[in-house]
């Protein structure tokens, strides 16, 4: 029973990591850039929703506010690419990494100015009520997280695998010049993926905020999601989910059974172990160059 509870909570938790990791992987799959601000995107998405729905702010019904927030974040992601990242087109990925790190500073600052630094709670119907199945308790928000994450992963996976646009995105990440030669509007395609990752971040943010409180530093979570994405094999969408679940599940078990001082390092030790045995993650996307 106890083990089952730990497992189920771990899975729900892992889905949050998985959701943020999806955001990383999306960007990586389509541009090979790494967005260090994805965690902060999530935080922003949560705050935008909060701003739209909470009573002391705009007081819209949650089911109006949530799609609206997703839309806002998608547009924001697209505009970010349009006005900022596009200027770095063709430049080294380290430049993009540094840019997104700096962007994280700015997003945190803006969120702090608008919403303050104290933790706030999203008035979400998902945060009310638990489900109790034979003694294993799961919050509504947990259920929602699991369902949404699995669906989203499937959707995105299909998108990349089956659609022409998805294929074009993969092509653009592998060889920008050749993608242009094929008539793919590479920059616009990359803008779309930033929009999509903004939307994903908003979804993650809404679900995360339904599970607990948020503050401008909530994006720090992104680091653990990074670990998840890498365990899964950066660049694989199912990998992101699996990585997230692994990190999510290891945590409650480690806190339950390891001594204080050791438990909180479990996800990172796990990460290192995985990398020692599979240097490119579980679902590797890296190849040896043929010469």
């Amino acid at each position, binding site marked *: 029973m106890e083990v089952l509870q730990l497992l189920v909570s771990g899975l729900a938790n892992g889905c949050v990591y998985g959701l943020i990791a999806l955001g990383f992987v999306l960007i990586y799959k389509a541009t090979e850039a790494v967005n260090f601000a994805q965690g902060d995107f999530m935080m922003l998405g949560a705050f935008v929703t909060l701003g739209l729905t909470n009573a002391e702010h705009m007081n819209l019904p949650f089911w109006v506010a949530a799609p609206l927030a997703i839309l806002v974040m998608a547009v924001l992601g697209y505009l970010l690419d349009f006005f900022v990242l596009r200027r770095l087109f063709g430049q080294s990925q380290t430049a993009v990494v540094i*840019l997104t*790190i*700096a*962007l994280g500073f700015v997003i945190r*600052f803006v969120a702090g100015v608008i919403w303050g630094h104290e933790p706030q709670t999203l008035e979400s119907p998902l945060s009310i009520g638990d489900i109790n199945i034979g003694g294993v308790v799961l919050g509504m928000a947990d259920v929602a997280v699991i369902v949404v994450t699995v669906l989203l992963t499937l959707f995105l996976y299909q998108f990349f695998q089956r659609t022409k646009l998805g294929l074009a995105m993969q092509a653009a990440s*592998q060889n920008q010049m050749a993608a242009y030669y094929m008539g793919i509007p590479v920059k616009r395609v990359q803008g779309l993926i930033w929009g999509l990752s903004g939307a994903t971040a908003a979804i993650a943010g809404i679900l995360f905020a339904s599970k607990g409180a948020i503050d401008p530093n909530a994006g720090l979570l992104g680091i653990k999601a990074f670990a998840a994405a*890498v365990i899964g094999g*950066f660049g694989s969408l199912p990998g992101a989910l699996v990585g997230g679940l692994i990190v999510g599940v290891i945590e409650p078990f480690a806190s339950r059974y390891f001594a204080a001082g050791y438990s909180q390092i479990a996800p990172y030790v796990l990460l290192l172990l995985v990398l020692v045995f599979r*240097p490119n993650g579980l679902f590797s996307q890296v190849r040896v*160059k043929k010469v």
Partner: protein
Amino acid sequence: MRILFKTSYNDDIRLFPDRWTLAVYAALLALAVLLPMLLDEFYIGEVTNVLIWAVAGLGLMLLTGQTGQVSLGHAAFLAIGCYTNTILIEAGLPFIVAFPLAGVITGIVGGIIAIPALRLHGIYLAIATIALSILADDIIVLLDPWTGGVSGKFPAVITIFGLEIERWTMPVRFYYLVLVVTMICTLFYRNLLRAPLGRAFAAVRDSEVSATAMGVHIARTKVKAFGLSCMITGWAGTLMGYYAGAFNNETFSLVISITLLMMIVIGGLGSIHGAFFGAVVVAFLPQALSIAKGAMIGGSVAIPGLETGVFGLILILFILFEPMGLYGRWLKIRTWFELFPFARKDMFRRQKSYLKTERLR
């Protein structure tokens, strides 16, 4: 434009390519030596800080800029250097022995840590080193008997042959100490670049396949790069510990690791100058912003976190303005002056460029 006539192969491996460069750097050194007579305590403190960051930057640059291995965990090596030095001194070693040894030990530890990391590339290495940075915090706590755990340590006053050096009460002496260390590290860096190992680093960075075909042992070269990088970083960490006067598990955090990487990229990857330019931006800009804000709207807080926000914004502008780093821009400015008045305005325009996947090795 200067035209060089080289008369021997030696000309190409000299520390300074020509008289003019030698003169420039000699002047720079003279300025550095005279600086305490020109600046007040505050600015000497800041210059010292910039130099310490530059040393740390040199350490990371050797690994990331030269060998192409991105590390987001170098704060851990700052910590190792810092703790090792203090522990050695507490064990009775004089500073003059403990300090070099601290760097060497950090280098050895770094080299050992590198072994499992050898097969990692790009983002995988970056994230693995992030984990290292995070774990360092916990390990310091777990090693309480040596590290003082969360209460941290306070480094003792430095004595070199009876001469006392302390950051806060004797800022000028401390400045000279840092200056000497900076010069030594820069010299080591330069030496490596003109020796076979430096070329092997670049070979590993640009093409592991053909480096191997040329007989470069990839793993061994990376271990050396890690080791040397960590040695320099360890020294920087020691100096940082002295500069702060106190340190604990939270001092060398992931934020420091990230700042370090940011610094060398903004400065310009793969060059010594880049480490220094980056240090000026990253270590002094927040302070400059604070001073600017003080001058404009008084010292008290109008908008909390404003400096950090503006700092982020400026970094974004830096990257957009010159993705190759400040050193790249510096070279262009220099070329412009050298060609003067023949430089075309659009000569430095960026031609369109395109990326290819890094998922093939």
